[in-house]
């Protein structure tokens, strides 16, 4: 039996809208096992992105606890959270969020620079990762010279840079046509098969089919698991 890599325990999260607190999550608890491929689904405003951000250490809950590989994210300070994201998480965003002034290779190298990897090692790894996402021949292209699918593949390579155990994806195929979207999901699925835990949010039920487990949220609560 595999161990839980992420434990979410009674998470609450509210946002202040003017003077009023609007609840986004209302007591969500779940466990994600190492190597799982988890999809969070739900309509707009259901709290799925909020939950993903909290799990990824990008946001903090108003109440409750989140354990990632035994570390309680709530008790970590800002720098410790940054280190956790750097070493244990890989992020993929809907709009890719690549650095416009950096080439594909340099974008992939960026997290390794932050992790103080030597120049030779990081260049070699960036090259390998770009090869892995089938962009070896686009290493020196800038994001503006790449298609949406190619940019997202660079983002995936960048997410893998420090070999994190968890991959977090927020609507990672949202800006792509369906053919490219499927190709991206296949790539992510292959990473999962190599042992990486993947947690992603999508609106698209076709993309959700790639997941081994779909968690549905509505009005800040878990609906189905």
């Amino acid at each position, binding site marked *: 039996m595999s161990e839980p890599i992420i434990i979410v325990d009674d998470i609450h999260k509210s946002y202040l809208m003017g003077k009023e607190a609007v609840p986004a999550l209302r007591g969500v608890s779940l466990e994600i096992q190492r190597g799982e491929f988890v999809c969070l689904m739900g309509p707009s405003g259901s709290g799925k992105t909020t939950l993903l951000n909290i799990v990824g250490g990008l946001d*903090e809950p108003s109440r409750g606890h989140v354990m990632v590989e035994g570390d309680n994210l709530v008790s970590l300070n800002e720098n410790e959270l*940054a280190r956790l994201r750097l070493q244990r998480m890989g*992020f993929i965003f809907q709009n890719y*969020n690549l650095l416009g*002034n950096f080439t594909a290779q340099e974008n992939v190298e*960026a997290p390794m620079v*932050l992790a103080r990897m030597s120049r030779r090692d990081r260049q070699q790894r960036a090259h390998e990762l770009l090869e892995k996402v089938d962009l070896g021949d686009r290493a020196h292209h800038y994001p503006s010279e790449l298609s949406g699918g190619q940019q997202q593949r660079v983002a995936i390579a*960048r997410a893998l840079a420090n070999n994190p155990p968890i991959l977090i994806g927020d609507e990672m195929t949202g800006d792509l046509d369906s053919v490219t979207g499927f190709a991206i999901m296949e790539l992510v699925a292959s990473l999962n098969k190599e042992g990486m835990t993947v947690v992603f949010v999508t609106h698209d039920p076709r993309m959700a089919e790639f997941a081994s487990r779909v968690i549905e949220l509505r009005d800040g609560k878990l609906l189905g698991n």
Partner: protein
Amino acid sequence: MVIKYVLKNFSRRKVRTILMILSLLVSTGLIVTMSATVETVRQSNVDLIASAVGRYDIGLSKLDTSLDPFMDVDEVIPQVLAANEKITAVYPRIETDIELNVNGNIGRGTLLALDPAVDDVGFVIVSEGQYPLDAGQAAVFEDTAFSLDLNLGDTVDVSYSFPLPREKGQEELAGASERRTSKRFTVAAIVRQDGVTDSSVHSGLIISLSDAQDWLGLNGRAQNLVATVDPALYETNNAETAALRVRDVAGSVQAALGDEYRYSLVKASALDGAAQGFLAVQALINTYGLISLGVVGLLVHTLVMTNVQEQRRDMAVLRILGSERNLLFRLVIIEVLVIGTIGVGLGIVLGQLITAYIVVPIIKNQMLAQGLNSGLSPQVTIGAILPAIISAFVVLILSSVKPAQDAARTKVMHAINPGVADNIQLEDLAQLRERRPDAKIFLAGVTLMLVFGLIAGFQVVDAFGGPALEVMFVLLALGLLVLGLGLMFFITTIPFERFVLFVMRLIFPRVTYFARRNVGRGQLRNTLISMLVLFSGVLPSFLATQLALENANYETSTRLDNGAPVNVRSFGYWGGGANSERLKPSFVNNDLRTVPGFDQMASISYGYESRAFDPVGMRSARVTVMGVDGRLPDVLFSDMIEFAAGTPDSLNQLLDDPNAVIISEGLAEQLVVELGGTVKLQGEGLDHTMNAHVIGIARRIPGFSGIGRSRLEAMDGSTVLVSVDAFRSLVTKLNDPLPLPDDPIFVQVLATLTPDADIHAVANEMGERYGLDYGFWTRFLEIQLEFNADAQATQRIFLLVLTVISFTTAVFGVFAVIYVTIYARRLEIGMMKAVGMLRRELTGMLIVEAIAMTLGAALAGIAAGASMGYVSFYGQRALQQIPTTFAIDSTVMPFIVFMVVLASVLGAAFSARRIVKKQAVDILRMQ
């Protein structure tokens, strides 16, 4: 509706609005302050000059050819008062040179007799005792009291020589017997004067006029009158106008009194002379002001352009609702004008406050420290404010036109589907078909014509213009210089940025990894920020380099000019043929030589204008012949002597050989004469030629201008040296007897000092011995160097102030551009944070980026200014054939670097703080 929309925008973009207002406030405030300071000093200059030359406006005395040197007070004063209604008061005085005797100690000074009860011109400042005076009492000036060891109650014998009228057309009779009278006075006060008379009067004494009249038998009479005029005559911005008004008043007095009087308008003429200097300072300040406003313009342009881009959707909605393009254009222009009105208005207030509460008190203190009482009051006139207001609004309009046009080009598609809005739409078709004039070609033409206009304009101004117009052209030339240099050196910003990044990478390798790419690849932001800083750095670096070179070469220049450690120049040195302006050999040998501290001495005659020919008279050139008496190699700075042929020893051989000559290398080339060859020198009168053989060909002899290697210059005139005997013979017609051996011919004496001589004691001794009676000026190298060291400090401070002015706005520019840049890159920052970049690393990256960009540009600006400084200085020195010592400015340029780095660090840290402190997810959610 427009105003409401504009005001709402202000509250939406507080930081940007505040930045624009602040930058306008500071730049306008500083320009107004500087202009008002110059204005204040210019107007108070009347007061300063009054203090220096006497606080009266017109002085009257009889001509020295007048049979009666005195005037009847009751008769003349009413005439003067009636001559012009602007004359407010006239006071009788006796002011003359006197001899003082205190127990056998003789001193000289000025006797000033006035009536303290009515004569309130200037201030008599009492150090000890009591003033005004009773009969038989005197107020002794501090210097005299000190030198003659006088105390209150002591007595002093004063000897007065009645002036002898000079016969018209004749010089004063030397040694003619004079009527002399003496009287003993008791010292009742020890005083100094400020503006009672010329500031050079600080020795002698004051007695009451009635006492003097009784003593000299001049009851009801005076030697001179001083008159004051209505102060309103000086109330004008134009010093020249003020001076001419006073001259008109003096003219009416002259019409009333006739030609027997001499008029002195020292205050008005000093004011007139000083006006030119103020114009130049004003021009420099205006140049700095314009640069600083130009930087503000770039800043406003950047911020408003960002606003327009951010508001694109709103504007597109307005267009959907039916607004015309004109309205969008007006929205932007009005927004900028409202900001301008607030910023400039506050700037004027700030300028007034700084002038009134900081600048004026500082100037007052400085004046007081120099012993000058001045009723200095701040002058913030329309003349000082208006140029700043007009320039600021012109700059604002120019900088907002492009963003306003951009706003007007907003398409409805920007609201519907921004992604495709920038593609060609139906509404673009008309524009595509339209043929438009190319403004860039027109501007290129205007720029080229500006250069021509400047050259032609200078000639026109020279012929028809006044000093103010000339200053305007200098301003334009300076502006073009800055602009041209800035643009030319803009190319160097990139290598400088790379250099800065290289250095930064050694210190902060990780953050520089990210910064290096952003700096090197962010095109638009880079150009703007670089230009902001670069233009601000050019002029200060240029002036600072010039100053550094001038200071470093001051000693060389002064040594070359003086020739020897001590240089005594009689007034005849600067022209004039009167024997009285030259020194006699006996004076040099028997008198000057006895001054304690002097060692070796050599005398140089006045320059005799002649021509030199080759032996057959085919080639010739104008020459100035100088006779040398004394061993020049013993007194000259030997390291500065340079001979092309022959040796410095030839300067000694010259003394014993009446047929020898030393010529310049340029003249030798012109006449094609070699060492040992013959040169014919034309002497005075007909058929008078001297065949001189060349014993030395000099490239440079310190103390002598007109000796160089340029043939072209020699054709125009050069200096040749001969012995004194040869000189006497040359200046005398063939059949006339030679001048007497002791006839005055020397205009320059070069000397050295004994090793143990106290240079200040020698200078004092020279002043004491010859200050009053002899017309010569002694320059001591060491004292000149000391003075220059003091002057250097003042010049540096002035430059630093100007640099602060031009960079204060640049700092705002840097701040604003960094702020906008960071704001525009918030998503990238959020992403970096999401992948694990620490807050300090993000801030560090942004700081390194800011430093690299601004410092790179500052270094380019410094390189531009400094290069121009070196080229112009070295060029000038090369033309003058003077050796040049290399120097680098160590004050202003490091200060620029410091300011730029500080602005970058603070700007980036402050701007980044707002975003970096947010959570990554919040940053990514920001719109």
